[in-house]
């Protein structure tokens, strides 16, 4: 394994991403669009609710608008990173294989892809965090951005797993949109979750721990360490799964 190959791979992948207009448009437009919709459609009424990761006697008082901004920031970050991760691993599959025939090791290529994804996650988390803060003042912006990095990590790993398993682009996008919509876009919304039945099902979905982390860090002074660690472990399962599939598909026979 050579550092030179990994750095060249990283540089080429980033160039390809930046040159795709759809990627730039999605990155800039989707979070701004989601948050603008929240601004125009939600009210300022106060909604006390409980968070699953905190003690039973802890009630959080926040406006409907405030919690919706936080929740939609998480949703847009998860969706964007997942889509880009799918794009990174699924597109150019054939030419990546050609690189491997020519001398790249699958692990070298995989590390380049993962480093690119990490940079994309951080970029999206910072952009969405700052944008959310412009609409609604976040108490702990730095920690909130880390929560967005966590949802990016979990859903990015999910996107990699889907992209490794599914060859066709449209089916891959459908798998991502379906889960993001049901999980991040609906079930993890604390306003729904607080009164939901069979909450155990919701706890097993990918966005559960990152959503808890993002909300706790954004509006409370409580520690989100447990939810963060669990979120990292959840993301690692997807990540290892996708890495194994990629390696076995791409290695030369």
């Amino acid at each position: 394994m050579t550092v030179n190959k990994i750095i060249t791979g990283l540089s080429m992948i980033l160039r390809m991403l930046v040159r795709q207009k759809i990627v730039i448009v999605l990155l800039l437009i989707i979070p701004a669009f989601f948050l603008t919709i929240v601004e125009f459609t939600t009210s300022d009424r106060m909604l006390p609710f409980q968070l699953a990761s905190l003690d039973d006697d802890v009630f959080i008082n926040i406006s409907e608008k405030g919690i919706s901004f936080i929740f939609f920031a998480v949703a847009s970050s998860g969706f964007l990173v997942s889509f880009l991760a799918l794009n990174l691993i699924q597109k150019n599959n054939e030419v990546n294989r050609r690189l491997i025939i020519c001398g790249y090791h699958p692990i070298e290529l995989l590390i380049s892809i993962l480093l690119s994804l990490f940079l994309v996650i951080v970029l999206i988390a910072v952009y969405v965090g700052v944008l959310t803060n412009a609409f609604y003042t976040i108490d702990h912006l730095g920690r909130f951005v880390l929560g967005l990095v966590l949802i990016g990590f979990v859903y990015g790993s999910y996107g990699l797993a889907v992209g490794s398993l599914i060859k066709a682009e449209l089916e891959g996008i459908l798998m991502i949109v379906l889960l993001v919509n049901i999980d991040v876009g609906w079930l993890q919304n604390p306003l729904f979750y607080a009164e939901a039945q069979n909450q155990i099902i919701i706890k097993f979905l990918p966005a559960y721990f990152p959503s808890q982390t993002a909300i706790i860090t954004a509006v409370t002074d409580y520690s989100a360490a447990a939810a963060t660690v669990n979120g990292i472990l959840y993301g690692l399962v997807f990540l290892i799964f996708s890495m194994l599939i990629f390696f076995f598909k791409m290695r030369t026979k």
Partner: protein
Amino acid sequence: MILNSEHIAKSFGRNIVLKDISFQLEAGSITGIVGENGSGKSVLMEIIVGVRSADQGAIIRNGSIGYCPQRAVLFPHLTVQEHFIYFSIAYGIGNEQSKKRSEELLQHFNYKKYEQEKIINLSGGTQQKLNLSIALLHEPDLLILDEPYNGFDWDTYQRFWDYTNQLKDRGCAILIVTHLLSEKERLDRIYELENGILV
């Protein structure tokens, strides 16, 4: 001997594509494999380069391989020059050598003016020139070409054969796979792939 293929067999479900393929390639030779569309030529090439595994048999290679797939397999959003850089790194070619080789190939196949263009903006013929150039970049001992002149104009076709003959003189073993072979006198040996066997 640069390549030895021993009793290669490959099936996809009940469809037997290759039954018992054995042949050898010597240094400084040009060998052709012809066959109808769907006869399994590309599958055989993919087994030789290691993209696919054979159900039975073995491939023994001695030396480096240059592989030019049938379709131009390139990154749509990278430029021609970036492809040369990326694949040079893959081959382990140094910076100076890479520049020298890419310059030589750009000049020989007459597409230097597209060096800074992204692949997505290039014609099919120019993409095919780069597809071939990538296989030639590291001066391989064994060159495997799957329908290499698809989309070439007459001038490029002639340049292709000039270059191939130069490689042959330098000791490279060349395997050309095609469904249409018009100039049989250019090849040292021709096999026909028919019903999964070479005749």
